[in-house]
């Protein structure tokens, strides 16, 4: 079973990487870019099992390690 954890910065938290990307794109002449934000995706390869139990466990992983709740939020996608 695969779990995909999408981690994004909370809105309101300034994103230096995203800002740099937007500026670089503008500098390259892509002028329709109003803003950019960068997040990360962590793909976990889990042993097969019950989906709702897996959801709970991945939530727990996010709380304990994968996400810094001071600045980030997340969303989990399960597959297979």
């Amino acid at each position: 079973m695969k779990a995909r954890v999408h981690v994004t910065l909370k809105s309101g938290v300034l994103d230096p990487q995203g800002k740099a990307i937007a500026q670089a794109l503008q500098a390259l002449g892509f002028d329709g870019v109003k803003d950019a934000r960068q997040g990360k995706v962590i793909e976990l390869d889990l042993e097969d099992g019950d989906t709702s139990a897996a959801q709970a466990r991945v939530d727990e992983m996010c709380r304990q390690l994968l996400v810094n709740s001071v600045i980030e939020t997340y969303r989990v996608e399960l597959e297979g």
Partner: protein
Amino acid sequence: MKAAVIVFPGSNCDRDVAVSLERTTGRPPLMHWHADADLPEDLDLIVIPGGFSYGDYLRSGAMAARSAAMAGVRTAAAKGRAVLGICNGFQVLCEAGLLPGALMRNRSLHYICRDVYLRVETTDSIFTGHYAPAQVARIPIAHHDGNYVADLATHCALEDEDRIAFRYCTPAGKVTDDANPNGSLDNIAGILSEERNVLGLMPHPERLADPRLGGTDGQPIFASLMEALS
């Protein structure tokens, strides 16, 4: 003063700070391995050194914050023991919740290694007593993720409770945006915990605490601790 330095896989300023501690106290600190939760009871000071614990591969300091040793540090801090986090150590302390806020990527997106100027914002702590109020200290930074962020309530609390220990400033002591090397909120370079027994700072006082290395402006931190804790 009995001091310990926590060694994580990927710590790389552990020896550097041990040299400064030994110079200050006259004896080498205890080097404590991350996997060991049991810290000696009689420690006066615990140092979380700089480096790249666990490669800083998920977020700076994130994995180290969940290590066995940090559980011990948390207990010691709750008992009022002094805890000093330098650079990666500051990141670890924030990730561990022992200090508020977070350290994000520098606004230039570059790693930056250079001397910066810090204004000492409070001398009311066991870490900063040996500085003069508003003294300007030249101390190096060396980090990729030193851009301090916190929400408004936290920022106000830090300010109101006199817990901002250092701010980045010009050589003349002005706190300006140009003097801010990494984009930190309000030029914050170091903060204290509510009980004032935990200090986290991005600059490396151990790197300029020896005339041979070109300066000693970092030494008062160690001297303050020595006086307060001996």
